[in-house]
């Protein structure tokens, strides 16, 4: 049979509704087949062709109605397709009988006319053969359309997810290498070079290491916590060169955690926040402690950045940086990864990422 309109019914996931199943293509096909059958049977019958055709058309519509109703009416324990084919088979003799009723009157009468019995048998026979066959064909097409719409839906979901991942990545790219950080750092390097300081070499090395890790095109396909720690160390070395009297730091990452997968720039985002919102606004500065360990109780990894800076005011903007980072962690580690912020005493903030790396290790 003709294919259903997949956008109208199948995509909405409600192909069983009455209106949707009783589509124009189906009606047209049922009527055309009725015309063909009437034409084929015409030589056998004494009945004039218009009457025969009329009967056939009525039978075709009744069978289509039966097919549609059986589809909408859910019978427990009976598959829908079987219910529909059975309905068509059962309704075929009944419908034929029904169209003969007006011409012959009461129940007992028809059996006496040999011609009638013959006609009835012919029509019922052809309805019985063609009806269920067409029903099966319609079902096949319908299932095909549903499968296609499911595939379409799946494709849509997948592309939406891909787009979200891409968006997150684009946001990340835009966030990288703040020009003011770069220019301030270069101004310091310039000062070291001009004064002939032996510190110039090591500082340039840190800057190169930082830039290499922070340049999106140069990022590794297998980001690890070890790579991220090297980036963070380079960044903190540069910051300490710039504000030696205001920044202390310590990086305390267990060596065996260096190989676990870790989203690039995630730790750096937390460090940048600690510098920007904790250390930078403070005249006396403070310290930053980066640590990572595996909780022996549940095997989850805790990565934290604690600063002793000015802390977060009640109405300080929470910003999109942390929200983006949360999204990235979810995307990278899956549902159970989270990022929490804690207030430090006497002042400062500790940001902690907790995740299971089992899935990350496998993928």
């Amino acid at each position, binding site marked *: 049979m003709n294919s259903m309109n997949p956008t109208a019914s199948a995509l909405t996931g409600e192909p069983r509704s009455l209106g949707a199943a009783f589509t124009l293509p189906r009606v047209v096909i049922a009527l055309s087949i009725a015309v063909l059958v009437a034409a084929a049977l015409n030589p056998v019958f004494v009945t004039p062709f218009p009457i025969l055709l009329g009967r056939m058309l009525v039978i075709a519509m009744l069978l289509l109605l039966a097919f549609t109703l059986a589809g909408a009416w859910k019978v427990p324990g009976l598959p829908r397709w079987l219910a529909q084919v059975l309905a068509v088979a059962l309704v075929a003799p009944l419908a034929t009988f029904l169209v003969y009723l007006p011409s012959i009157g009461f129940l007992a009468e028809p059996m006496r006319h040999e011609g009638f019995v013959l006609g009835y048998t012919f029509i019922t026979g052809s309805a019985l053969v063609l009806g269920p066959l067409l029903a099966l064909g319609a079902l096949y097409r319908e299932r095909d359309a549903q499968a296609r719409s499911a595939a379409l839906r799946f494709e849509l979901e997948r592309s939406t997810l891909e787009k979200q991942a891409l968006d997150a990545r684009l946001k990340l790219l835009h966030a990288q290498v703040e020009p003011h950080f770069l220019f301030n750092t270069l101004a310091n390097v310039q000062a070291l070079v001009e004064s002939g300081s032996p510190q110039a070499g090591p500082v340039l090395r840190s800057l190169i290491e930082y830039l290499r890790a922070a340049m999106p095109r140069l990022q590794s396909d297998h980001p690890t916590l070890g790579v991220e720690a090297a980036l963070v160390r380079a960044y903190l070395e540069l910051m300490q060169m710039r504000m030696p009297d205001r920044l202390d730091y310590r990086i305390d990452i267990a060596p065996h955690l260096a190989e676990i997968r870790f989203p690039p720039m995630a730790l750096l985002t937390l460090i940048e926040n600690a510098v920007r919102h904790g250390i930078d*606004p403070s005249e006396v500065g403070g310290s930053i402690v980066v640590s990572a360990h595996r909780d022996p109780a549940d095997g989850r990894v805790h990565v934290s950045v604690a600063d002793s800076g000015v802390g977060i005011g009640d109405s300080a903007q929470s*910003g999109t940086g942390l929200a983006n980072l949360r999204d990235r962690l979810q995307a990278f580690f899956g549902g159970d990864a989270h990022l929490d*912020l804690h*207030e430090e005493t006497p002042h400062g903030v500790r940001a902690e990422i907790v995740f299971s790396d089992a899935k990350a290790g496998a993928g």
Partner: protein
Amino acid sequence: MSAAASALIADDEPLLRERLRAHLARLWPELQVVGEARNGREAVELFDQHLPQVVFLDVQMPGMNGVEAARSIGRRAAVVFVTAHEQYAVQAFTQGALDYLVKPFDAERLADTVRRLQERLARPQAAERGALDTVLDGLASELKRRAGLDGTATRHLRWIKASVGSSTRLIPVEQIAFMRSDEKYTLVVWEGGEALIRKTIRELADELDPESFAQIHRSVIVNLRQVSQVDRGLNETAEVKLKNRKDVLPVSRSFVHIFRQM
């Protein structure tokens, strides 16, 4: 005139203070650098102490920033801003009141500045106070806005501090689903769990951003962005259902109007 010139350098990055001092010593040997400040507050203190004719001010310094320090110094000295943020410097310069240096700057650019300063010190000062104040006011609010310290949008409560176990959690308000009063305390329910805080529902209703949060009952505040459904009940009341949560919150009669236009 230039023989008696004195200057103050303010920058939170010591290497940059040293570099500027070294170049000034070469380009303007008569200039006496009377002090180095690490932030705006120190700059103002040292200025009041020494009253130098020239002040080099880094714009972004901890505590009091360079622009605030410049406002405090006012017309009493020739101020040169030093910044990596070119747009601030250009804003100030287009008004003709000050000179500026964009980091990293080279020695030739500093030589220009020195020439300009020497000319300025050689002639009597023109009255430009009004224009300068306007520029500095604009710059100061721009800096504050960038630091997230000012502006109407930031005045609402954005973080809830709640004791959880031995630590104090900082909860961004966007993550909160709802808050319900619990005798003396308020129960905060957010994506990461639940916690009791000391603020009352009334205080919270005043402090939270009304765009996102609404009191819907004497004892309940809900995050409107987390509401999935509102069901009308009897007697002009209603119930609120939340996204991804089973909690059902009551809406009392006096608050039902909140959801009318939704």
